[in-house]
């Protein structure tokens, strides 16, 4: 039996050039999705068709990198065959694993393709080992991606009580809500990540430069207005500015990105199997820049955990591509715990 994986670098691929950028810059694996609502980055023009998928798998696997396919939305009764077909496609093209959120779909994958490796998506909202072990016992999932709401101490407790590998988000856009448990988007515009595969889909978003500043609207609701010198964020509701009791501020979360790099030594100590980089909606340029930095950082941690310090140049490069150009440790570090 080979040693369990430690800090594999899993990078986003929204297109074939992005996949190649990830592989060429040192990703251990890439994750990707198909051009429909079977995955949670269902944006127009993004993702893979059969041709680019075949080429992407060949490119990555020739270089001994893994391809993980995200099928992490929730199948719905009328269109269930679409998800089944996507699982079949993944199996027949030989992806290394599929990333699922829905138990019904896991049951299908397990029954139809018993050899296919299953990962539990962050969209499955499993925040405790009891939940992770449910999927492990019932469907044999080999890895779980934990929502970005747990502290590292809580992550440690999950790892101590499950056989499943644990994957954590390392960098990128930050859901402040528990993934899979957020319907803010569908409340405003009818489409949610769970069913449609996108939060704030393009058809509902309007940006407009006005005399008061640049306005962002979601299905007509003004969710933010930026002065000329202000950094902007994604048009998601959780990062909008609202008025609460006469005070206008980022009531839920500032436009900011997760960057957990300084916690890498601790993640290594806990035996975290993989680090995921967010951003399938981003360009190949982003993927190249971020993969390069994280490859260097993970290599440094593996070489000498105690001496590890994120280099200023790495942090600057990451800050530059960040939403709102700000970084946070998110929930991993909670000083008051």
């Amino acid at each position, binding site marked *: 039996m080979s040693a369990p994986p430690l800090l594999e670098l899993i990078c986003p691929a929204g297109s074939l050039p992005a996949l190649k950028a990830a592989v060429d810059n040192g990703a251990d694996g890439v994750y990707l999705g198909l051009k429909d609502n079977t995955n949670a980055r269902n944006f127009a023009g993004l993702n893979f068709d059969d041709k680019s998928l075949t080429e992407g798998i060949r490119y990555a696997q020739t270089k001994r990198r893994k391809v993980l396919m995200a099928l992490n939305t929730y199948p719905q009764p009328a269109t269930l065959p679409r998800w089944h077909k996507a699982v079949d496609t993944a199996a027949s093209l030989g992806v290394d694993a599929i990333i699922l959120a829905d138990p019904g779909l896991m*049951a*299908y994958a397990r029954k139809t393709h018993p050899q296919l490796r299953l990962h539990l998506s962050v969209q*499955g909202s*499993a925040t405790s080992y009891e939940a992770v072990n449910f999927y492990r016992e019932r469907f044999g999932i080999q890895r779980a991606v934990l929502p970005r709401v747990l502290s590292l101490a809580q992550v440690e407790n999950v790892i101590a009580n499950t056989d499943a590998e644990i994957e954590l988000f390392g960098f990128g856009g930050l859901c402040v809500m528990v993934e899979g*448990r957020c319907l803010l988007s569908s409340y405003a515009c009818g489409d949610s990540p769970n*069913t449609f595969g996108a939060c704030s889909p393009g058809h509902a978003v309007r940006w407009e430069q006005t005399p008061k500043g640049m306005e962002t609207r979601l299905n007509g609701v003004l969710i933010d207005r930026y002065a000329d010198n202000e950094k902007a964020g994604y048009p998601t509701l959780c990062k909008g500015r*609202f008025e609460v009791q006469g005070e206008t501020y980022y009531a839920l*979360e500032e436009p900011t990105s997760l960057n957990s790099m300084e916690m890498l030594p601790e993640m290594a100590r806990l035996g975290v199997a993989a680090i995921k980089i967010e951003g399938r909606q981003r360009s190949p340029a982003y993927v190249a820049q971020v993969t390069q930095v994280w490859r260097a950082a993970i290599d440094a941690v593996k070489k000498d955990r105690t001496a590890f310090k994120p280099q200023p140049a790495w942090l600057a490069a990451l800050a530059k591509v960040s939403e709102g150009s700000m970084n946070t440790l998110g929930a991993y570090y909670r000083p*008051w715990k």
Partner: protein
Amino acid sequence: MKLSLGPLLYYWSREDTLAFYEQAATWPLDIVYLGETVCSRRHLLRLPDWLELAEKFSAAGKEVVLSSQTLIESESDLKALRKLIANGREDGKRFKVEANEWGAVRLLAEAGREFVAGPTLNTYNPDTLDMLAEMGATRWVPPVEMPRTMIKEMLAALPSASNGAARLETELFGYGRLPLAFSARCFTARHYNLQKDDCQFRCLDHPDGLVLASREGEDFLAINGIQTQSARVMSLAHRFDELDTAGIDVLRLSPQSRQMERIVAIYRALADGDIAPKEAPAQLDRLMPAAPCDGYWLGEAGMAYHPAP
């Protein structure tokens, strides 16, 4: 159509909470959900208090269900969950539990217990629903965003429903501010510039949530600790006729701090055919903390509202 009182989503003082349930015992409800589903820091009522209330409702002839916490983060959350599930009674019987995440499903199935599959399990297709039924679910609550067309499709495609072996009840979130999102962060504490672990229990000051408006003054969401709700109140009273045909067995009314008795009475009258659905909105209007919405039921944006069916 059965009527249920959903779990109390807000944090009220102990006196207010007990007074509310004291009254609720006399309301024409069939089912009552009890327990804290939102925040593990809320402690004015502890499990023994909830169990005492449960016994009272049970004695008053209501079906009682204990609702589990939605976001489980720590070992102490799990400990509380296990206790809630065990909930030993003197007669050896146990109250049914509503599972609001899959860890609870695992524990309940392991213990061989029947349960209610709560709205945050994300049951979006018949395969998952059928599996829940097989594991012991006797009732399910669809995700609050699920439209009527999809609920119909779910029930039509359900294998266990067709063979009649397991009669699975469908319960719809029918009235109240919609629970839309959960976070590890507390937005109420954030509003007061407090850390979550030193929140000073400011939720107590906002018995129906704290409204968040767009910069154009449009009431949009309501924050309730770690939960984000709709500012508008989901109300399906004017569409009561549509519920039966969609296969809804139970309609869930979510507690609000004032006028709940009259809200329940109006829905009871609807269920008994004493008032027509089209008369209901006018009666409800003055009793609601905000404007209504029904978009999710129609497969639109949740905040939409169509007064006339």
